[in-house]
């Protein structure tokens, strides 16, 4: 070994190394060429759907918003920013955002309820799978069906009134949808009933991703359920709670289905989206309606951006 020069040793080593890396590269290429395509093939279907049903319509919407198209004409006349000028010079178009406040307030109730149930049902509770199903179920029902069910619920002499009568609370009976002071509360509570399940599932998923040993350790330290919620669960699912608030704001700005089915925006329950739909399909002003939709999109983006600045996204670290 003594006569072997160190230089030779080094050369041999490098050669072997090079060969190994080359082999690895060749082998890798062979294996990866199959792998590289597969994920894209999987992505193809959702992307095709997304492009067809989201991006192309959105691009069209931007285009329509610069025209005076009536939804049918063969020609679409370019009018520049006229539609946007009209949207911003007609305060009555924005007054309806006042109605969104009802839904925004209701979303706090909704998130609180969902959080409560998600926490309770993440512990060992009797029949917890049954209750999980119960709470999530309304979200699976078609929004139109919910609207129709709740019309019967709120009707004079309907389910709610009968329920109140059963408890001798006739004095509370109202025109739940007919009274302009109450109609938005009734509609917003229908919305809470419908969407609590979605928040609930998001929260439950996040809570269950917290490792079990953290709870065990907390129990050893003598933490009760409230402590566990306050110091483990709440900080652990903070990003999801933040997301829920973003969804709540975007949702309350663009409420549509429930008021559209139940009152069609009558009796002071008009929302911005119903108004946009009316503009397009009742008054044949597709250009103006598209501009309104673009403005709504911009408002939602701005509100979300502000919220992200005010409440920055933090990484969660429970360890």
């Amino acid at each position, binding site marked *: 070994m003594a006569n072997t020069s160190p230089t030779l040793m080094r050369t041999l080593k490098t050669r072997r190394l090079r060969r190994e890396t080359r082999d690895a590269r060749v082998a890798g290429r062979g294996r990866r060429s199959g792998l590289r395509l597969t994920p894209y093939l999987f992505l193809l279907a959702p992307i095709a759907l997304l492009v067809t049903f989201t991006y192309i319509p959105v691009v069209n919407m931007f285009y329509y918003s610069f025209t005076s198209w009536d939804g049918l004409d063969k020609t679409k006349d370019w009018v520049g920013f006229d539609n946007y000028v009209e949207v911003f010079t007609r305060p009555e178009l924005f007054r309806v955002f006042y109605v969104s406040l009802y839904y925004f307030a209701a979303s706090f109730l909704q998130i609180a309820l969902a959080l409560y149930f998600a926490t309770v049902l993440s512990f060992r509770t009797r029949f917890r799978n049954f209750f999980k199903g119960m709470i999530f179920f309304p979200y699976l029902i078609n929004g139109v069906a919910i609207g129709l069910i709740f019309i019967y619920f709120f009707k004079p002499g309907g389910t709610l009134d009968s329920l109140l009568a059963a408890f001798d609370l006739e004095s509370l009976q109202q025109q739940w949808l007919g009274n302009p002071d109450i109609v938005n509360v009734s509609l917003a509570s229908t919305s809470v009933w419908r969407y609590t399940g979605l928040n609930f599932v998001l929260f439950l998923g996040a809570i269950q*991703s917290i490792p079990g040993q953290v709870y065990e350790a907390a129990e050893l330290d003598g933490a009760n359920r409230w402590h566990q919620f306050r110091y483990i669960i709440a900080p652990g699912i903070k990003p999801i709670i933040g997301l829920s608030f973003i969804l709540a704001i975007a949702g309350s700005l663009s409420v549509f289905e429930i008021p559209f089915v139940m009152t069609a925006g009558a009796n002071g329950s008009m929302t911005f989206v119903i108004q946009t739909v009316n503009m397009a399909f009742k008054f044949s*002003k597709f250009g103006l309606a598209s501009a309104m939709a673009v403005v709504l999109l911009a408002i939602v983006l701005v509100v979300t951006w502000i919220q992200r600045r005010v409440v920055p996204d933090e990484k969660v670290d429970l360890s």
Partner: protein
Amino acid sequence: MFPQQQRRRGALALAAGVTLALTAACSSGSDDPATTPDPTGSSTDGAVAAPAGEITVLTWRTDLVEDGTFDRYVSEFKAKYPDVTDVKVEGITDYEGEVKTRMNTEDYGDVLAIVNTVNPDQLPDFFEPLGDQAAMSTEYRMLAPKSFEGKSYGIPVVGNTQGIVYNKKVWADAGITDLPTTPDEFLQDLKAIKDSAPDVDPLYTNYADGWPLTQWESHRGEISADPDFDNLFAQDDAPWAEGTDHYVIDSLLWDAVEQGLTEADPTTTSWEPSKNLLGTGKIGAMVLGSWAIVQMQQAATDSGGSADDIGYMPFPYQVDGTFHAIIGGDYNLGINVHSDNKVTARAWIDWFNHDSGFADDQGGISPLVDSQLPANLADFTAAGVEFIEMNPAPAGKESLLNDIDSAAEIGLWSPDYRKALVDNARGAGEGKSKQEYFDSLDAKWAAARATVAG
């Protein structure tokens, strides 16, 4: 392990929800079968080729598709034209909305009812001309609304007149013997019903469904009894001023609501049950076109009442001692300008008007000039009602009224403005007085007229 499993289940449920939403979105698209080309090889020349092959018919009468009436029509049509292989009938629930969207493609059936939001000047873009209006009017009536520059693009399947359908028993029980001849008399009658039977709604607006409120609009022209009313309306800067047609019609609705003579909670009404309520005497009257009479009689029989209780009265207003009622076409059948089988499509339209018996079945006025009034308008004959058919708009102004209406965002034929009227009248909504509300409509109309007229 358990949380992992839970999460997946949640994700699955979410995915299921998304899939549902997606399929729901897709299913409303255009999946109707492509029409086969005309096998005879000819295209537009209807005189020589015989009807053959296959056509698609779009209809708004989903009820008649479901109960098999259309199956009968199709087999009778095929019996007359044995070369016709198939007639596909598509019933569409949201007819106006869906068909209008489909008309942006070329794929909207061969025969379809002309959507009412199509302006007359757009007719040639979408529909095949059926002939010269002047020549066709010897055979058909009520062609004017779907004609443009002397050509007719559609033929109404049935004609309607306008009035108030009421329960004769309810009115008789309240001691009312004569037809009201003025709006005030009508209101007094409603009050008499309310007083004699407090659980009856004397007049029912069907506010929640919305479209029944648009039936009030059909009465415009009856107050002035002027066949040119629509054309004057487009020239008027204050169509809700006192004494005008709209003032009289909308005042009646306003006053009835304000005096508590309509349903207590208008926001939760429902159309189908309302028919039974009228039939069983829980509702006194509803303002509806004559097409409703047959349905109301049916509902009365079904719910244990009698079809004879259903009566039909003209709008309570007389000019020189005579009632007037507007007569006009329901949906008009037209031919898709992109159709591959226009010959058969035309044959279907002609057969439908002459041989199908549709107008009689529906108790409507036949579009054929030489036909009799249907039996269920006997009440009108007895009351000596004079019918008015609106004159067409002058050349170049066919779309004017629609254009002003759209620009004003009033929506004469959409329920919103009368819903707001009902809300204001019952002290909800913006809390306007009648005069304030009518003034706001006038202001919108005048401003829109100024922009449209240029």
